[in-house]
């Protein structure tokens, strides 16, 4: 099945618009709640028939869930691999739901319900992964949206719940609130000043953890880190998100301090390095994804430091998503070899930067 992405609410990427607080440093805030439907084995142990019944039960409930008004249901299990990759590159589905983990195929009944600002992955590791995604640092707004969705859906569909353990999940690391709040943050200043190791170690002492751009098991590229809570049980939802927000605020301050130090102690070296990154993106004829991510990180830093003006954070956000391989193939309308993808990426980045009013130093 092919997919017309323009039919998705916001193209599924409304959070890229850089409208949120600290949007030049914090790309997005995501909060997810893991829930299971009472009466079925959890997804990994469920049969195809059970997963399809879970999906049918959710589908029937949707018209009575106001948070999902106008939402679109995508049967992920009926999509081709390139389209599933595309959804994963947009951060709309996890690698597991998209069936992209090595040795795994997409599960029968895997689906995505995509509404405005909220979505539900059906038949992920848990039957339901309710999510809310916001631009910038916005844990409060993100939590209110997903909590409302949770209450509306939970009053229509019975959740697996235990008075002592809370919401029951397939993996005991999610039991209790089932809540994972994560903030996608760009920390080039701390990386360049080599302060990052200390900051990351500090996170772990605060009960938080970090991951790469694509969540669990993914590598850190382009100086993007996902900071999230590690525990889900024994603390309330409000405490969990409040603690995360407090620590992220501190990390932002440390990042800003690091940037000031860089400018003060190595101003012209940094300026030269970042303009070279811009030059490469503006004129290169072939770019690997890693190269593109790293240079985009540099240009993003330059915009944050006001060394380059006339370039919007929104454009930089869009480039991060749209210069990935599945997006390039989708735009070209065909599968691309690695070399063709590198050329298409360079062309896409060049044109996007040329379309901006014109960067100035």
């Amino acid at each position, binding site marked *: 099945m092919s997919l017309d992405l323009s039919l998705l609410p916001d193209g599924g990427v409304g959070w890229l618009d850089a409208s949120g607080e600290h949007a030049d440093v914090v790309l997005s805030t995501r909060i997810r709640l893991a829930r299971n439907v009472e009466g079925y084995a959890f997804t990994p142990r469920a049969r195809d028939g059970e997963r399809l019944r879970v999906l049918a039960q959710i589908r029937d409930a949707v018209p009575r869930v106001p948070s999902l008004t106008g939402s679109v249901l995508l049967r992920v299990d009926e999509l081709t691999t390139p389209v599933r990759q595309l959804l994963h590159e947009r951060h709309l589905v996890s690698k597991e739901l998209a069936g992209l983990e090595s040795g795994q195929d997409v599960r029968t009944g895997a689906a995505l319900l995509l509404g405005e600002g909220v979505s539900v992955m059906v038949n992920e590791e848990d039957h339901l992964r309710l999510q809310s995604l916001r631009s910038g640092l916005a844990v409060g707004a993100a939590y209110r949206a997903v909590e409302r969705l949770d209450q509306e859906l939970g009053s229509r569909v019975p959740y697996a*719940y235990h008075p002592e*353990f809370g919401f029951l999940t397939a993996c005991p690391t999610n039991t209790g609130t089932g809540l994972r709040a994560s903030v996608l943050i760009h920390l080039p200043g701390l990386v360049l000043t080599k302060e990052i190791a200390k900051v990351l170690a500090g996170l772990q002492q605060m009960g938080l953890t970090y991951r790469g751009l694509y969540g669990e098991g993914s590598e850190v590229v382009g100086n993007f880190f996902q900071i999230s809570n590690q525990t889900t049980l024994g603390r309330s939802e409000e405490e969990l998100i409040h603690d995360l927000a407090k620590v992220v605020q501190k990390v932002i301050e440390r990042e800003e301090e690091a940037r000031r130090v860089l400018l003060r102690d190595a101003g012209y070296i940094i300026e030269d390095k970042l303009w070279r990154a811009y030059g490469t993106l503006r004129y290169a004829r072939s770019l690997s994804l890693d190269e593109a991510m790293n240079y985009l990180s540099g240009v993003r830093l330059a915009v944050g430091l006001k060394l380059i003006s006339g370039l919007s954070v929104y454009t930089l956000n869009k480039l991060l998503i749209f210069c990935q391989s599945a997006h390039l193939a989708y735009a070209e309308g065909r599968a691309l070899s690695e070399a063709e993808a590198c050329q298409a990426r360079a062309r896409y980045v060049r044109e996007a930067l040329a379309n901006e009013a014109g960067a100035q130093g």
Partner: protein
Amino acid sequence: MLCENCRENDAVVNLTTIKDNVVTQQHLCEKCAAAKGVETSVTMPKHPLGDFLQAVQQKSLVGADDAPACHFCGASARDFRTTGRLGCARCYGAFERSLRELLRRLHGNSRHTGRRYEPPAPELLERAGSVAQLRERLRRAIDSEQFELAAELRDRLRAVDT
């Protein structure tokens, strides 16, 4: 390539030893390598909790290996240990004691203090689905050879059908 020791299994370990300044290389299968005291990572569980669960469960879930499998989904403590995933909501009851201990170690606490939840009243549910659920449980019970449970479920289904 066959194992140079037993010449039966495929060699998966390349063992280099230095003795009296002489370097020797041996290509061994997993079993022969283990016999020579070489740990292979093949037997480690492949989920993120792997190491942690192994360490914890050697203490707390050993006894639970004899605990009966979950009545609803048929999952055993061993299944949990290899996959790191519980089979269903009832597993929390089936392995309650050892799970409470595991949750405490994972989260520093085993008591939920977040939002409470009241399931919707039956008349609000979109689908009762009870017959379908009973049938599913029956299939599952037969598959996992829990014949007593299967008989009970069959009787309940008959009662619903008539």
